[in-house]
């Protein structure tokens, strides 16, 4: 067994860590406080090459492996979840479906701008009444001559309402299958198409520096060619996309947990109570030991799942396990870390306060922890 990373992967980790420490850490708290997306860091992330990492050079990507993408997401998440969300959603959900299922023409039209970070693309899946029950998608697309006419709405869509968003992929009901279940297809809708509106959502507890929006389709007409892949493949495409996406959410959990752990370790060396640094008290030292242990396990499961994917082996179960475990590890690490910070951990002056809030999304987004358990239980033959 070989647990080592390649030299390029090591250099990548160093470079993204440096970048995150210098360019993102300094603005993350302010963006969280103002609940604002930073176009400045977005531009810098694009210039560094954080978008289109697994896309071939033909379409302006970096042609790296999936592990590299996960390393980069982990390192950004170590300092800020919102920025990591922009990258994870941008790559897995924005670029991913276009790259894997798009026609040559669609790829050439959209990918270069997305891979350079000049534009962003949303993935419209969740609806007010279709969360875990994604099959219950209500947004409908009806073919009228050479056009799809779309009606419906989507909610909690990342990167879909920024100034630089160029469009969205929406999962739509395009008919009824022979077995009576809805036929689902993905359709590309460009920004500015009449009848399509993306409205930013505010009042979030977490990921406040990331862009989240509601999408509205009101007799929105797009050309027939905007269908992504074959008609009726929407559910399959969505599942494929989420398998990869789960790994990036896992990376956010792992990176976030690592960040929480490092803050806790540093603080407990500095904080003196009863005449000594609080790290010396076994009750605290054991918390730190538990965090280190769980982070190590999270790292192993996540990178094993990525390895399976890079080697074209089935990884659905491992992706669900990695997503579930990494987000729960971050939950426990954030909790321990705030506890070790005591009263200061409740103050915005300490980044751990933000990590504590940001963590919660990981147990809900891209398949709740319950859905992950459902996926795993089915794949092990339990249910």
């Amino acid at each position: 067994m070989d647990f080592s990373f390649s030299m390029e992967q090591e250099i990548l980790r160093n470079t993204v860590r440096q970048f995150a420490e210098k360019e993102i850490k300094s603005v993350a708290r302010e963006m969280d406080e103002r609940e604002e997306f930073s176009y400045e860091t977005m531009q810098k992330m694009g210039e560094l090459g954080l978008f289109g990492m697994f896309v071939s050079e033909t379409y302006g990507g970096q042609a790296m492996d999936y592990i590299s993408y996960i390393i980069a997401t982990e390192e950004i998440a170590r300092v800020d979840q919102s920025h990591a969300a922009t990258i994870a959603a941008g790559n897995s959900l924005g670029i991913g479906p276009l790259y894997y299922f798009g026609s040559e023409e669609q790829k050439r039209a959209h990918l270069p701008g997305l891979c350079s970070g000049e534009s962003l693309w949303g993935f419209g899946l969740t609806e007010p009444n279709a969360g875990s029950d994604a099959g219950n998608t209500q947004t409908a697309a009806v073919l009228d001559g050479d056009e799809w006419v779309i009606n419906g709405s989507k909610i909690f869509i990342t990167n879909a309402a920024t100034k630089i968003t160029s469009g969205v992929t929406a999962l739509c009901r395009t008919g009824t299958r022979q077995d009576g279940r809805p036929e689902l297809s993905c359709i590309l809708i460009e920004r500015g198409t009449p009848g399509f509106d993306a409205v930013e959502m505010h009042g979030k507890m977490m990921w406040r520096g990331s862009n989240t929006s509601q999408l509205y389709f009101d007799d929105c007409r797009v050309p027939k060619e905007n269908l992504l892949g074959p008609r009726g493949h929407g559910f399959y495409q969505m599942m494929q996309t989420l398998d990869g996406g789960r790994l990036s959410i896992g990376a956010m959990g792992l990176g976030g947990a690592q960040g929480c752990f490092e803050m806790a370790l540093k603080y407990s060396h500095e904080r003196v109570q009863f005449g000594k640094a609080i790290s010396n008290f076994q009750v605290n030292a054991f918390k730190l030991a538990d965090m280190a242990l769980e982070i190590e396990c999270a790292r192993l499961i996540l990178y094993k799942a990525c390895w399976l994917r890079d080697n074209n082996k089935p990884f659905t179960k491992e992706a669900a396990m990695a997503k579930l475990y990494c987000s729960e590890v971050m939950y426990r690490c954030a909790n321990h870390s705030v506890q070790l910070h005591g009263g200061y951990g409740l103050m915005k002056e300490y980044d751990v306060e933000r990590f504590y809030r940001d963590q919660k999304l990981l147990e809900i987004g891209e398949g709740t922890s319950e859905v992950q358990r459902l996926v795993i239980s089915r794949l092990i033959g339990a249910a």
Partner: protein
Amino acid sequence: MNIIVCLKQVPDTESQIKLAPDGKSILKEDLKWVMNPYDEFGVEEALRIKEKFGGSVTVVGLGPKRVTESIRTALAMGADKGILISDPALEGSDALATAKALAAAVKDIPYDIIFTGQRGVDDDNGIVGPALAEYLGIPHMSIIVKVEVSQDGKSVKCNKPVEGQTLVIESPLPAVVTAQKGLNEPRYASLPGIMKAKKKPLEEKTFAALGLNPSEFGEGARNLKVIELTPPPARKAGKIVSGDTPESKAKELARLLHEEAKVI
């Protein structure tokens, strides 16, 4: 313009340094290694000169195989080729021997200007740059915060901070310049750069290939011998100056600085 950058790999400044049982060295097994930050300024300056004048940047590193990672990082930043001087006889060499090996590797490639960090952040000697210039028989300018190569590419003007002032010095090229913090803001090794670096040439050279005599290197040939390494003393707890008014606090502080700390 042919530019050479000599770089060293040092323990990451975030690493926890632990002494080895011999009391003269540090434990290296668990360390994370990075490019010496001062050398990074050298790489950046070299790239900027190349962008202005054209030419190529060659990065020369020295040490065990792991140093390749730092050389590749410089290639990912935009340098064109790399050379690693690697030989078992190198282990334990002092700064003068290091400079001698670098000079041997550099002398056969055409160069107009050579950059290196003003010192390594590990041993803090600051010897390699000037010694390299001596071995090559060319001028050196050390601890430089600004570099201006003349239009004709024949000379260089440098700024060197000295005791609150700036010394402006000029030298014909070729010359060695050692980089100080403030010279520039090094760029990141971008992701496309990392992928491009994979295909750039990186040559490994042994002592035999460079015509060097192994007996002049290593622990036995050191001019500078390490007698003992000790960790820095633990920081003592601070003192809070008490008093009712700012004036009385200031008075008390002045008294403490004078009588206890004896610094004024």
